[in-house]
């Protein structure tokens, strides 16, 4: 059963400019797109917000294209769009791999990349990929555009630097040099929230990002520096375990997460499929 919705107000802009004007003039509004997270909270009565801004019809925010050498992905691109995109598969295969493991096809057809990032869950499966890819978050307000490095976008558990009058409109991802790998560890392949999720770029300048092991996704810079300077995998594993702060929760334990993170580092940097 859905709790009473009669008190809810939905604004339905037909363009991005109109959406940004509504945010400025009628805010605060909760942006909604694929609703795969929002409606879970709404259906269970845990959502206290009453005013919403519907972005789903803003097709201009769904584009995936190469622009100025970077891969630009509109915030409304769904996980299914990412899986289907030849550009994503060629330039950022670890993102297509992450999208394939989110929910089931019904969720992939509706959930968006922008929503996954805006939701800022530490278990968001695309987040380690964007962190390891050195992505930039493009934010727009009625007056301005600003760009924030992905690794600075989330400031705490479900907290981000997005201001109430801003929308995430796109992600820009520079070319990634090195071999990309992604691995999600959960109770089953589909419909499971990650116990640990990890994205790794191997090569001269390794990049490692891990989810579900701290309040936000962790970009493991000390581990990266150690690997870049020729440290053994054992040494890198010890550093990585110090860089994360996992907890015991309903899905797993801190000890298990540390063990899995260390094992995944060895596998994903060795060229194994994980």
């Amino acid at each position: 059963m859905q709790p009473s919705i009669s008190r809810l107000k939905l604004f339905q802009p037909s363009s991005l400019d109109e959406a940004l004007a509504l945010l400025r003039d009628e805010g605060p509004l909760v942006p909604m797109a694929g609703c795969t997270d929002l409606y879970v909270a709404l259906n269970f009565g845990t959502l206290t917000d009453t005013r919403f801004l519907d972005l789903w019809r803003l097709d201009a925010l769904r584009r995936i294209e190469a622009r100025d050498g970077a891969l630009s992905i509109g915030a409304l691109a769904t996980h299914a769009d990412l899986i289907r995109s030849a550009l994503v598969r060629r330039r950022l295969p670890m993102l297509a791999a992450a999208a394939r493991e989110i929910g089931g096809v019904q969720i992939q057809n509706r959930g968006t990349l922008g929503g996954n990032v805006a939701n800022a869950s530490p278990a968001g499966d695309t987040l380690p990929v964007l962190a390891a890819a050195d992505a930039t978050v493009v934010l727009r307000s009625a007056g301005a555009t600003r760009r924030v490095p992905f690794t600075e976008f989330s400031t705490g558990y479900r907290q981000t630097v997005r201001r109430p009058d801003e929308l995430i409109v796109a992600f820009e991802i520079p070319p990634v040099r090195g071999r990309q790998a992604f691995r999600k560890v959960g109770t089953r392949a589909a419909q499971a929230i990650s116990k640990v999720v990890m994205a790794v770029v191997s090569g001269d300048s390794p990049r490692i990002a891990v989810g579900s092991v701290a309040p936000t996704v962790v970009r493991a810079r000390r581990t990266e520096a150690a690997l870049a300077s020729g440290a053994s995998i054992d040494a890198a594993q010890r550093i990585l375990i110090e860089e994360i702060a996992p907890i015991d929760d309903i899905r797993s334990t801190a000890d298990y997460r540390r063990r899995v993170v260390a094992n995944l580092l060895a596998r994903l940097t060795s060229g194994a499929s994980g």
Partner: protein
Amino acid sequence: MRLTINGVRRRIEAHPMKRLLDVLREDCALTGTKEGCGEGECGACTVLIDGVPINSCLVPAAHADGTRVTTIEGLGGRHPLQRAFVAYGGAQCGICTPGMILAAVALGPKPTLDEIKVGLAGNLCRCTGYSAIYRSIRQA
């Protein structure tokens, strides 16, 4: 809102944030679509919007405006998948069956076993152990 449900054009007065699931069951009396978990985990409420499978418990009515929605009633009862589910034991308690069949419809004709497993990964069944469902789809 105006939409086409199972080939019939309809005009419905509903709050734009009402779940499509409730629009179908309450406003259209199409109770073949089931509610399972209400959080997008089980797939029981799966319907097709413009041919694409979605969880109707997570879709606001506003997003169905102007679309073509297909529910289990739209298959008419004699669809090859419906007949195969009966013939090969794909349905037991039946609550997951409408969602399973619509997810299978979205796969098109003659899916491989791997395609079936991926396409139905978002549909949970607690009775059959899945192999009877996969068998039904392959035989349809």
